[in-house]
């Protein structure tokens, strides 16, 4: 069968593609920020918390890393509702994505924390810094700087994985694609266009995180060397 490609019928839908891409970016940005905070806190808890916290965090990380995001999304979405709390699909999507990326962030940041030498803590301790001050000034900042490339990759993957949330009615890029293709019956063309938009988005996310890194890691910007 010879298939007639026809991208022209998709042209009318560009505002919707744009809207979907925008929501994808928003979902990813919010999940990245919250997931980073959650993951970092968990990493600290796992490195320096009481045994029960360590156990809790370790279990959380293992469970999340060893089950598919798709299933996590369903459990969050329907689980929350079963508890009688109504949240919008976007909120459920963000919760699921944050829980998911938090676990990965935790593992990555933990590696960073472990790379900070014990003598650094002693030095800070001897200067009279309090524990939170030591964490903030001496441990977390260099730790994050060291693992920043790994975090960047993880957050690009998160952006791509957010396509799964279309299944619980979040109107992000993939959901928009599904709707457009059932309107136009141009599924192949639609998915090609969406694939290209995702490629562009991952480029945007990478650039964004790179710029953010430049702004935050002054030493790296000035010297260009890895810690």
């Amino acid at each position, binding site marked *: 069968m010879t298939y007639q490609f026809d991208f022209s019928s998709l042209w009318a839908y560009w505002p919707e593609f744009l809207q979907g891409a925008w929501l994808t970016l928003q979902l990813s940005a919010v999940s990245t920020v919250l997931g980073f905070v959650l993951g970092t806190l968990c990493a600290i808890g796992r490195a320096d918390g009481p045994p029960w916290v360590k156990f809790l965090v370790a279990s959380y990380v293992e469970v999340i890393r060893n089950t598919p995001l798709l299933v996590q999304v369903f459990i969050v979405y329907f689980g929350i509702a079963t508890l009688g709390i109504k949240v919008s699909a976007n909120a459920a999507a963000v919760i699921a994505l944050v829980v998911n990326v938090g676990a990965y962030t935790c593992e990555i940041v933990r590696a960073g924390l472990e790379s900070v030498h014990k003598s650094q803590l*002693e030095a800070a301790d001897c200067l009279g810094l*309090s524990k939170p*001050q030591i964490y903030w000034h*001496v441990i977390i900042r*260099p730790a994050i700087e060291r693992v920043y490339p790994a975090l960047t990759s993880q957050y690009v993957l998160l952006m791509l994985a957010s396509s799964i949330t279309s299944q619980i009615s979040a109107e992000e890029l993939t959901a928009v694609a599904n709707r457009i293709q059932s309107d136009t019956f141009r599924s192949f063309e639609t998915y090609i266009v969406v694939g290209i938009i995702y490629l562009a988005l991952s480029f945007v996310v990478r650039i964004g995180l790179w710029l953010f890194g430049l702004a935050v890691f002054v030493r790296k910007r000035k010297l260009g060397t890895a810690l």
Partner: protein
Amino acid sequence: MSAVVKLSNVYKSFGTNKVLDGVSFEVGRGEVAAVIGQSGSGKSTALRCINALETIDGGTIDVCGHAVHDEKLDRRSLRRDVGIVFQSYNLFPHLTAEQNIMLAPSCVKKVSKAEARDLAKDVLARVGLAEKAGHYPEQLSGGQQQRVAIARSLAMQPKLMLFDEVTSALDPQLTGEVLKVMEDLARGGMTMILVTHEMAFARKVASQVVYMHKGKVWETGPGAMLDSPRTPELASFVGSGL
């Protein structure tokens, strides 16, 4: 002369390894004490105990009015009074020399940013590195890093400074730079305890030499004691150490 540091009968073991076996000595205000002895004799451990980096098993340690042996010791207030400099510098790699120095005053003493910067300029000048304020540790030589580390401690205006083999990672020329700074400090009246392998320096600067051997204070006296050792152990140590 009032004692700034006073160790009485301090015991400390790591597992079954008795590292400090009844150590006692005193250091008065403005004194410079040089602790010498073979590797493994417990010098670093003694220094770390003074700064409460290790807890002790027996005896008492008084440092600037703090009862270090006490379980209820307020470590942070002890550490405002005591500065320590390590062999491995331990500068914070992600901060410039100036930021390294400003950190503790602004975090601990809540000094304003501008004041902290002035303070940093001041102590950097004292160690002869005024123009390196904006450099990151990796951009500095070993001797310069060590001097920044000293400046970082000085910025907290401690009553007592501890130095643990601060020159042994340096080549002879860089060693000279650092020893000069320490000499200046001694001349300025700072109370100091230094663990060192530099006999010549100990002889020249120290008002008291403490010779440790197998976890005990074996001999103690003025710098001149190195020239006329009373025990065969010190004699052989001085002989070999030159």
